[in-house]
């Protein structure tokens, strides 16, 4: 790891002032569970770390009229200790439970989970976010892409968004508040993620000088039937192979509106719009769930080794839908 300066601000404004206009100048340090491993492997080498764990304004979980406000520096474990609100958002609760290591839940923050960098093994082995060799050729299509994207994978990005909280938050219609030198702005969580167009772009639509301050789950989400289903190869400390988070507005068993978001299958959380359309106005039963699962695979273009993820999408959507109405 390269030597770095360490800033320990107590306000968001101070923190923002310590960040720089380029990514390599400074990085926000939350739990550090991802950032420090990236630094130890020389994948990122910021000149300064800005610790945000001592900024009170970034802590706390509060229920307000507008909805549930979660400070970005709240750890997964702290959030999990709010069974009341989480009871209304089983989609989120299941995603937190999936991060099965107590150490990780104890250190990792909600903001850090959303902004963790992709697990793509070419990226993590030093071939860059877009996984290219020295000649600039992409390595994923002809390489081992078993964990890579099946949607939006025609390049230049092939990695998957690693956050399993993100799809849950997107289905719940959550938004984030970003604080920067020019003040605050709000974004739907869905728009926090982007597909980089070239090597200079990141996978998050946050600027180097911005801090993710808060996540807001709107009060209206509490009246949805929501659930997440994760497919995991093993229970122990691992990311899922594919996930589906769903939020439904029902009248009786009839679906008025469905939000279906897939995880670990695209460079961003992936809206399964065809599945949402498929369900609208239908009675949700096993057969309808299976049809929605099938529709969710529309547009999938598996690479050489990840065709199985298409099946996982099918099943995850179906099971998440059935879990939501169980």
């Amino acid at each position, binding site marked *: 790891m390269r030597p770095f300066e360490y800033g320990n601000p107590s306000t968001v404004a101070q923190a923002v002032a310590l960040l720089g206009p380029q990514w390599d100048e400074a990085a926000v340090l939350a739990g550090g569970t991802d950032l420090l491993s990236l630094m130890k492997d020389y994948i990122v080498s910021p000149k300064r770390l800005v610790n945000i764990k001592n900024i009170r304004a970034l802590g706390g979980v509060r229920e307000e009229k507008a909805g549930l406000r979660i400070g970005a520096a709240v750890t997964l474990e702290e959030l999990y200790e709010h069974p009341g609100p989480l009871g209304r958002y089983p989609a989120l609760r299941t995603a937190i439970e999936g991060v*099965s290591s107590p150490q990780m839940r104890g250190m990792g923050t909600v903001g850090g989970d959303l902004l963790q960098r992709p697990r793509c093994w*070419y990226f993590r*082995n030093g071939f860059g976010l877009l996984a290219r060799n020295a000649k600039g050729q992409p390595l994923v299509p*002809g*390489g081992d892409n078993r964990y890579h994207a099946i949607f939006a994978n025609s390049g230049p990005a092939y990695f998957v968004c690693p956050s399993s909280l993100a799809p849950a938050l997107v289905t719940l219609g959550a938004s984030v508040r970003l604080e920067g030198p020019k003040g605050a702005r709000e974004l739907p969580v869905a728009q926090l993620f982007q597909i980089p167009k070239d090597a200079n772009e990141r996978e998050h639509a946050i600027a180097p000088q911005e801090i993710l301050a808060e996540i807001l789950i709107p009060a209206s989400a509490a009246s949805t039937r929501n659930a997440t289903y994760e497919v995991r190869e093993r229970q*122990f400390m691992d990311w899922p*192979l594919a996930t589906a988070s769903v939020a439904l507005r029902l009248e009786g068993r009839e679906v008025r509106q469905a939000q279906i978001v897939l995880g670990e299958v695209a460079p961003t959380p992936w809206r399964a719009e065809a599945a949402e359309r498929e369900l609208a106005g239908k009675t949700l039963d096993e057969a309808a769930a299976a049809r929605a699962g099938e529709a969710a695979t529309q547009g999938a273009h598996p690479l050489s080794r990840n*065709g199985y993820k298409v*099946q996982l999408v*099918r099943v995850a959507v179906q099971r998440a839908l059935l879990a939501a109405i169980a």
Partner: protein
Amino acid sequence: MADLQWPPAANRHLIGKSISRIDGPWKSSGTAKYSYDMNPPGLLYAKMVTSPYAHAKITAIDTSAAEHAPGVHAVHLFTAVGKEVTCEGQEVAAVAADTEEQAEDAARLVRVEYDELPYLVADTDPTHAGAGNFRQNSEETQGNPTQGFQQAEVVSEGEYGLPVITHCCMESHGSVAQWDGDKLNVWLSTQNVSGQGGEYAQGLSNAGINFSASNLHVDCQVMGGGFGSKFSADTWGVAAAVLAKKAGRPVKLMLDRNVELLVAGCRPSMHGKIRVGAKRDGTLVAWESQSWGTGGVRGFGVPPIPYIFDIPNYSRTHANVLTNIGAARAWRAPNHPQMCYLTMTALEDLAAKLGMDPLDFFLKNIALTGERADYYKQELQQAAEMIGWKQKWHPRGDKTPGSIKRGLGLSIHTWGGAGHQGFCRTTIHPDGSVEVATGSQDLGTGTRTVIGIVAAETLGLPLEGVQVEIGDTKYPPDGASGGSSTVGGVTSSTRVAATDALNQLLAKVAPSLGTTPDKLEAAQGQIRVIGDPSKAISWKQACAKMGATPIVAQGQGGSRGPGRALISAGVGGAQMAEVSVDVDTGVVRMEKMVAVQDCGLVIDSKTAESQVFGACIMGTCYALHEEKIMDQQTGTCLNPNMEFYKLGGIDDIGDIVVHFMTDPMYENRGVIGLGEPPVVSPGAAISNAVANAIGVRVPELPMTPDRVLAALGKGGQA
């Protein structure tokens, strides 16, 4: 006179009982010190510079920037300009500095230039490997395979394989080295405490340091796993000593996790096309296999299949594909898990094709297993009873509605396990205290404990009555812990030494009890007259009679020593697995494993059981998760870390039930090694259980969801 033979069952007070390991509290309280924990004053930390390329020629090395970097005291080169590196992670240089971070920073300042050379890292069959990249073995045949297949009424054909996996020791390889004048102390994480002298002498002399093996002191009280990968001190072990010499300070060089996974462990892959035929009644008649595998640039041995079942007619070929990956090292029961997997899966497929319960099929052909046929038969029946085979087994494909399918699978295995040669010294002091010392090592298996049990049993003392000293070259040398040789080696040497020491004591005590030594025994903390326990003196009183000089006896163990009658070799085992498979996601769960094992006389049933638990856990990991993944485009290993090099965690391991065969027929063979055999079968047993659950074979391990779904035709690897 005390008898050297193992005591009969009725007279055993410790042997065979369930006894907690004596170093348990030491380990669980964190006071046990591993190589990693050794921090002598003035310690420097070393980091390695390793090759980023799978194959390249070194054209330049410049260490000057590293030498002048902050905190750096010494730099060592493993190689030289003009030499080749033949795998990623191969050691090039090492740098020792005041702190680990400084060493890491300085290592990155070592400038090495390479000319890249063609490489092969993909685990591919010989036809795709390209000329020069494999060594074909000549075909071996037995009987008349052509005629055999003509006799066969049912023939099953399939392809089976398992990838390269790494040893992935929890404690990586390495040591702390400290010079004291001409003497070298090393705290080395090793499976071979007594056997390092030659390697250090040679390695140091190559580095221009005059050193004689008699000046080497190795200390390894506890170690965090070796599994066959830690016999040698390795170049990095010698490098720590060289750096320590150059710097005049002690040096710690432990491999980083990525280097550990790249070069310090490799179980060769094995893949094969197999045809096997039987008569309609299940009688096995013919086998044909073309197999191949890779164990790195130097290849590895030829694993003969079929395994255990000596099918009358067979033909087999095997090719060693040479690849630019870290070289093969002995992995717990070298080659057996591979041979077992390829054989037992092919046989189970044949049973399915015959419409036979594989248990009946195995029993039908049990005579082909040779001299241990009776053992296998009893073990299969025992395992079947424990897992409820007859009640639960169903023909291929669980017909239960829903996506969760359950299945049962079985496998059998064998291993040698003869005790190695080694020496033990037993000292009885005049105050009654006893010390048993041997330059052996406890890999975490319970060696220290079984030595204590044997000594205490022999001397009629409680376990606390003996002090066990191992893991140090100041004790009489013992063999390397390989081939499951340790328990036989140390128990025979200990028994010989302790019996000899006891007989010396009995000779001194006999007159005071008014008898002769042959009428005396040591039991329950006393020396007493055989058959007349009222004529007894306490152990302490007895020892007080020896005068000021302790009694010392040295015993030789192993098959060439006087204790050869205490040990033997050749074990069998049967394992049965029950799995559940989600056929919609391809996720497999090992629900239960029954492991039935013979290993002669069990010394400590608790640590023995733990060995089998560990083996079943390790086996579940390689059956379901583990794989070293190489990228042919870049020559790089994609998963040299604990994230993508997947091992199971506690929630991924089902119930494990262990049973030892301990009837006199098994026990009378004496002590036989156990460390390796139980890790041989799990891959095959779990794969067979998955096939039984879902109705098709998942041909390649590990059975990850992509492979399971591919086998089911629901997607998967294209």
